[in-house]
């Protein structure tokens, strides 16, 4: 028996080694092919359809709980919500009056400048799935995929501002990298003076940083950062965050600037996927979109028109080189 087992197990060890080498080579091959070439996209999509039931199963208890909580909200809460929403709607409509006037004005100016870059962005709304991806990367899974027309590199917003961009598209789902991921950078400009720079994620969903601003840069806490539209991924003029803190160390040549993201990166449930017309990413388009973010942070109705009016002249100064060059 002992002898039998010995021969048996040594035979098995060879088999084990063989299979181990085989599977490892297969896995290595997959890594290389997946990294270097694009052939695996289809296989991946098929596999992800197989994984979809697991993701839905994981999500369903949380969905159920949310549904239960929604269905048993008390009347008081609903009434309070209703009052709040109506107040917000009034405010929004008030701003919209300004917005339409501004948009009409912009269209006129555009016509004058013979620059008909379309700004009509198309949106679809997706829900974040209650599924945790890698713990060390700021990514979320959203229930819209290739079948909805989502594509890699697409800009994703939430109701507050820029949320991230699509990194991977499967048939029914897509993966979105948050702007707070340490490997993510987004071209931004300061809404007040048009200073352009790049905001980099920190891995902390409540903080971005601006690592490339010199200590002498004109940036103060409270400045609004909007997308600059450079780079061609994000549409111009959407809010990215507000400057939380500026630390200037005279010994360093670069300032240490912290940004608080405008999007609720750790709380949002619904995201908007945006289609940008190619023309709209021209820096000149910033002037069209700038009133939207400028009006957003205004806390009350009274100064809202003032802010929007103030932002309107400030916005064209945002991207001065192209606008100035075109006018003269």
């Amino acid at each position: 028996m002992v002898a039998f087992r010995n021969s048996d197990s040594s035979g098995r060890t060879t088999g084990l080694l063989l299979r181990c080498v085989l599977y490892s080579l297969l896995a290595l091959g997959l890594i290389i092919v997946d990294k270097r070439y694009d052939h695996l996209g289809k296989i991946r999509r098929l596999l992800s359809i197989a994984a979809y039931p697991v993701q839905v199963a994981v999500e369903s208890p949380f969905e159920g709980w949310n549904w239960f909580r929604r269905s048993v909200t008390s009347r008081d809460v609903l009434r309070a919500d209703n009052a709040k929403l109506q107040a917000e709607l009034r405010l929004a409509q008030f701003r919209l009056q300004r917005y339409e006037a501004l948009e009409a004005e912009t269209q006129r100016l555009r016509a004058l400048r013979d620059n008909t870059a379309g700004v009509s962005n198309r949106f679809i709304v997706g829900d974040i799935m209650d599924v945790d991806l890698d713990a060390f990367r700021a990514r979320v899974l959203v229930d819209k995929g290739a079948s909805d027309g989502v594509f890699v590199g697409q800009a994703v917003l939430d109701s507050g501002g820029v949320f991230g961009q699509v990194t991977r598209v499967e048939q029914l789902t897509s993966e979105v990298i948050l702007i707070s991921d340490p490997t993510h950078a987004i071209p931004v400009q300061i809404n007040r003076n048009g200073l352009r720079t790049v905001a980099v994620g920190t891995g902390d969903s409540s903080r971005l940083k601006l690592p490339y601003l010199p200590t002498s840069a004109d940036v103060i806490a409270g400045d609004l950062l909007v997308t600059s539209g450079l780079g061609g991924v994000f549409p111009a003029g959407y809010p990215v965050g507000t400057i939380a803190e500026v630390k200037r160390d005279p010994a360093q040549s670069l300032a240490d600037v912290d940004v608080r993201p405008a999007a609720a990166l750790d709380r949002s449930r619904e995201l908007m996927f945006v289609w940008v017309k190619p023309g709209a990413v021209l820096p000149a388009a910033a002037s069209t979109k700038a009133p939207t973010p400028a009006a957003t942070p205004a806390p009350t109705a009274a100064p809202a028109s003032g802010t929007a009016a103030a932002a309107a002249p400030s916005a064209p100064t945002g991207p001065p080189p192209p606008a100035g060059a075109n006018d003269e």
Partner: protein
Amino acid sequence: MMRDDRISRLPMLLSAVVALALAVIPLPSALDALRPDFLVLVVFYWSIESPRAGGLTLAFFAGIALDVIKGVVLGQHALALTLMAAWATYLRLRLRVFSVLSQSLTIFAFLSGYQFILFWVDGATGNPVTSFSRWLAPVIGAAIWPFLASTLGRLHEQR
């Protein structure tokens, strides 16, 4: 030993699917880094207890499933799991007679090796994760190994 041949693969597949679900179940972000690699532990258990039922095949396909569901480069978890499951299978006879503590320590070594391969592939494919908290998962995994092994053992014996 010969019992392995007649092993039904149902508990194996069932536990693997449950562990796969546990790998993506949402946790508060503070706890997320502490999440043990359940599927890896389950694969180790089956590699040690019944390698004939296809522990290595399970390891490879469980790894592919993890790659797909976590959205990393295809083959990363498959490579790490295959190598570590082969090591576990190789040491299984010794592991079975180990005390609980030394078993946990060995599992810790396997899990660290697993994380190291992931770390290496991450770096080689250009998404390095330098956070130190990645090395917490092996500690937690080794700590829950005795409970997991006894739970799976009960599932295993019940038939």
